[in-house]
């Protein structure tokens, strides 16, 4: 088992980077508003992982506190965003994000 490398900061950051990439990918490519919101959640959680990882290796409680705030804000954001999506659906009869472009030029 000596081949096993102890889990270090880089691993966390790598995971977090992947999460961010996936989140971005979801946000930028999905047409479904719900999926886009899910992507946003992924990005937020990637940030949370970063906070916690740096908090663990850096000592102190600041990162943990920050991630707690992010979770709370993410919950609030999800609530508001879902309410918006519901209203969009009411108006456009669709949650296709590409069809919601009445504010363009």
């Amino acid at each position: 088992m000596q081949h096993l490398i102890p889990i270090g900061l880089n691993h966390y950051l790598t995971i977090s980077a992947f999460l961010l990439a996936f989140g971005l990918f979801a946000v930028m490519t999905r047409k479904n508003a719900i999926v886009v919101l899910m992507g946003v959640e992924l990005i937020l959680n990637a940030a949370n992982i970063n906070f916690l990882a740096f908090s663990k290796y850096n000592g102190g409680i600041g990162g943990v506190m920050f991630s707690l705030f992010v979770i709370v804000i993410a919950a609030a954001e999800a609530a508001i965003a879902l309410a918006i999506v519901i209203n969009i659906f009411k108006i456009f009869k669709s949650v296709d994000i590409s069809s919601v472009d009445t504010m363009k030029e």
Partner: protein
Amino acid sequence: MHSLIQLSIVVLLLPLLSFVILIFFNRRLPRRGDFVGVGILGTAFAISAYIFWTVIVQTYDPAFRVAWDFTWIDLGKVPGIGHLQIKMGIVIDNLTAIMLAMVTLISLLVHLYSTGYMAGDKNYGRYFAFLGIFTFSMLGIVLSDNLFSIYIFWELVGLSSYLLIGFFFEKDSAADAQKKAFLANRVGDIGMWLGILILYSQFHTFSFEQIYANLAAGKFAMSNAWLTAAGLLLFMGCVGKSAQFPLHIWLPDAMEGPTPVSALIHAATMVAAGVYFVARIFVLLTPDALHVIAFIGAFTAFMAATIAITQNDIKRVLAYSTVSQLGYMVLGLGVGAYSAALFHLVTHAFFKACLFLGSGAIIHAMHHEQDMRWMGGLRRHMPWTFATFTLATLALAGLPLTSGFMSKDAILAGAIGFANVEGGGIYYLIPVLGFFSAMLTAFYMGRQIWLVFFGESRTHLKPADNHHHGLDAHSAHDDHHDDHEVHEVSWNMRAPLVILAVLSVFIVYSPNPLDGAEGWFMKMIKTPATVVGPANHNCTALHAETPSPLMAEAFPAVETHGATDAHAVTGGEHAAATGEHAFADPRQAEIAHAAHAAHFPAIYISSIMVVFGISLAGIVFVFRIIDPDKTAEAIRPLYLFSLNKWYWDEIYQSTFIKGSVLLSKILSWFDTNVIDGIVNGVAVLVRNLAFANNSFDKYVVDGLVNFTAFSVNTTGAVLRKLQTGKVQTYVALLLVVLFGYFVFYFTRLIY
């Protein structure tokens, strides 16, 4: 205020009232209001006669003088001038009283005469209005006590003469004559005004009395030449108004006016204004100025007399004789024969008015025929006119027992005395020209009397081509004239003739027919003591001590004038007699004395000259011993020279008038090319500048504004594309920017 002053103001304003009434209401009054004019002038004459009676007959004092003035305009302190006050005033002395009576009398007679002469004219009422304003202006000149108001009335006289000369303005010749008269007068008036300004600049007053007081006190700060210039410039007014040599041309043409107007204006009063004015300023004239005046007068007298002998128009002969007689008056003033000149002014006014009114009667009777060549034989038809005209002619010629004799001889005696005192040979030219003119006067008046009144009627000799009747009707028409139509004029035209003729007899002026000096006139009008003379006395005394042997031989009676001491005493006495100044100019006294001494020589010479002139006229025109036509042929250049009035009109035409036209053409050229060029150039410049400015606005300023708008618009159009409304696009952009930031940031970090 003296009661005479009050009366004289009434006299002055009455004719103005007549003018105002007649000019506005003549059409609403019966007879066009001529009775208003005659009545008002009658009143004015009655008051003037009372003034005359009070001043001349009752007071009988050579030094009588009342004056009154009031401030007319007070401008207060004027920068650069000082206290500027213009006063108006009235002065009454013996001269004023005489002139007042003379002007109103002649004006009254002319008014009366005009009721007959002008009857039926379509502008009858306006004619009397003009006579009124003329009389008003003339009285204003007579009464003025200062240069300013005399100048105002002077111009008013010019205006009224303009109106009256051009009364028949439908005729081109009358319109031309009025313009000529006005312009000639203006030339003189400019000089007069400059003279007034010279005096005002020195003394800051227009009043005669104050100017003379200042001059006598030696307050004239500039050189004597300026004083001479002032005198000569003032004399220029007289040259214009009294038709003296360079400006005499207007008076003969002024005969285009109605004949009574010629009597009033161009014989008796207006032209007398110039002489009157010179008499008023006499005391400030320097000896040099007086010499110029004397020569101008003598030359005018001679020249006009030579012209008069060949004129055919009855009024033109009289007109030139007027110019000639005015020359005598100016000559008289120039030589210092002050009272003689004014005496001649008054006597001439009466007999010349009589002559003009008589010629008017003739013209009226002849149905506006003025050419003497076609008259003749009128004495049978017009006995009254004949008698009065002849009497006045004798007075004009200067035959003894007439008023003209006394006054003319007094002037000529003064001229001889003057020449003796001055002593230079050239000064004898003045009396010689005077005597020669007297001879010519007798000659041309004899010719006129003969042509008009004697012989047979020559009406039928008139060439038919300018007659308005056809050839066949011509002789019948003339017979008609002779038998029925040439008749004596009515009483209202005859009465003035008789009154004026009576006033041409010697007894009115002096008990002694040979010596005017014994009469009331010469006793009342004394030569005033000059206020500028003494400075030049030394040189005249030198002259006086070297009398010309020629004249000493000719006039033994004046030989003793070289004794200057005796004259100084005489001068002192003279001054004491006039009572005006404590001193008298010895030169003046000398001339007066010499003139007195030359009295009898003057009488002899002028009587001989007059008799010779009349005899010559008789020889030529009555007995035809010398045929006038052949003589005229024999001396044709001289005859033409005289007939064409010395070519003065042509000379003025080719010099002054052509010169003026040329000058105006040059100025017009200058105006159109240079002034207009400058103006147009400036306009073009401004226009081009405006175009340039416009282009700058249009292309640069507007361009900047538009470019700003355009660039904003373009930028907006480009950036607007980014606003897709798609969330993913925004995220992508965010990432790009973020990526760009990181690239930038890390690049900074690395290097």
